[in-house]
């Protein structure tokens, strides 16, 4: 038996090299795996908060309604009642946070209206749509229609 051990000494040395390698791996792993990994699942728990803490670019309708009562009232009476302010006026979270910092620019009425109301066979049949060229001959939409309260 002792003889066997002596004859296999090189194999024991090899096994020790492997054990040392394995132990080093486990130690390094222990030290390097990010804290919080695996708390909720197989991922860094902090990634949830990091995804959450980005600032919003669109303020959301509630923020607009807080100040712009007049326009909100107008809008509620017309067929644009379901359209959020920022759908036409663009993202305004910076304006909502500090009204003086970023003033909204008035949208280009022709391009804006056509974006939704230019006729297209793929649009739902009951959605109001026109071939703008035939309908107005290039005149601005808001010379007849009030965008906050368009007549149906």
């Amino acid at each position, binding site marked *: 038996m002792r*003889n*066997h051990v*002596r*004859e*296999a*000494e*090189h*194999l024991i*040395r*090899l096994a020790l*090299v*492997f054990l040392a*390698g394995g132990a080093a*791996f486990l130690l390094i*792993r222990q030290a*390097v*795996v990010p804290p919080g*990994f*695996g708390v909720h699942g*197989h991922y860094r728990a902090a990634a949830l908060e990091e995804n959450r803490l980005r600032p919003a670019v669109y303020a959301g309708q509630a923020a607009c309604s807080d100040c712009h009562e007049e326009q909100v009232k107008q809008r509620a009476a017309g067929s644009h009642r379901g359209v959020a302010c920022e759908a036409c006026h663009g993202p305004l979270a910076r304006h909502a946070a500090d009204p003086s910092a970023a003033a909204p620019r008035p949208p280009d009425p022709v391009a804006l209206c056509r974006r939704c109301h230019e006729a297209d066979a793929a649009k739902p049949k009951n959605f109001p749509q026109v071939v703008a060229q035939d309908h107005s001959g290039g005149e601005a939409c808001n010379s007849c229609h009030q965008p906050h309260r368009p007549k149906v």
Partner: protein
Amino acid sequence: MTGVEGFMYPNEVELQWSALIVLYPYITGLVAGAFILASLERVFKVAAVRPTYRLALLTALAFLLVAPLPLQLHLGHPERSFEMYLTPHRSSAMAMFGFVYLWYLMVVLVIEIWLDYRADIVRLSQTRRGLTGWIYRLLTLGSRNVSPESRRIDDRVGWAITVIGIPSAFLLHGYVGFIFGSVKANAWWSTPLMPIVFLFSAMVSGIAAVLLLYMGISWRQKRKVDMLCLDTIARYLFYVFLIDFSLEMLDLVHRIYEADESFRSLDFMVRTRLYTSQVIVQIYLGTVLPILLLAATQVLRLSERLRRGLYAAAGLLTLAGIFAMRWNVVIGGQLFSKSYLGYTSYKLEFATREGLLTTVFLMVLPLAILWGLLKLLPPWPEREAA
């Protein structure tokens, strides 16, 4: 966007996996194939292939060392790749591959080579001076015991390692096939045959590579080629190739007969964008022709010289054909839209990180490593001494 035909989902236009990812299954395939050839001698006692035993092991090692490089170079954040070992995701085929790779490299190849070469290493550690002497002394792990009894133990352990090594080699390359075959979103990849097809094509390419290397090295070193060995390897190549071809045809026939929702799209792709690489290079030049050449050497009585010529031609065609097969799987699987309504195209760039230059470099690198290994661990020392 140029190169798009029909409709692709807008994010699909850009190809995700480049020529480097073609190299990855190609190189691991060579590893698995070379190892299985080596195990023929060790486990299945095919004495005729003895002259290529060590060469096949060193070839496997040289290619295995390079196998992760194309993956590494392809990553968006190579510096984070160690996460694959730190927090491997158990449900991810790719994460588990890291461990299969390590297992195969360290437990199978390195130990088997070390055990087989130990007597030579001890001998060389006593005769060589300088840096190489140091390397050999390090490799002895401080044990100079090469008594007959210790060598008998080595032989037994080595045999056991090879026995473990065969399923490990199967696992290694079958696993690469699984990485593709398990992607249910991709109709070109998603088939349970993928691991088996990968495995047999791996054996084909590995055997062909060792055959060519053996002929090439013998010619270079002006050593006489062992014709019995060559004939035996070629015969095995022929048999394995027949199985490989049958499996690939089974896959093809199955797809054509089932003709599921993806078929029209894939069929069109094979007839157009993939025609050259799939039909011409992979099937005709890379499979049918070498099988015919090898069949000729089995059926006809040919001179040694002619047989050597045919083996070399068949080997080269095989390597090209299997490369084309990897290309068609990896690149082909990304050319069609998952909507089955359109196609994109892939253009191999030249001098970029994932371009042609890198691809060629990564293909030559294992040969350079093999050259070094052959110097360090000569596979035919008895003849060298003579």
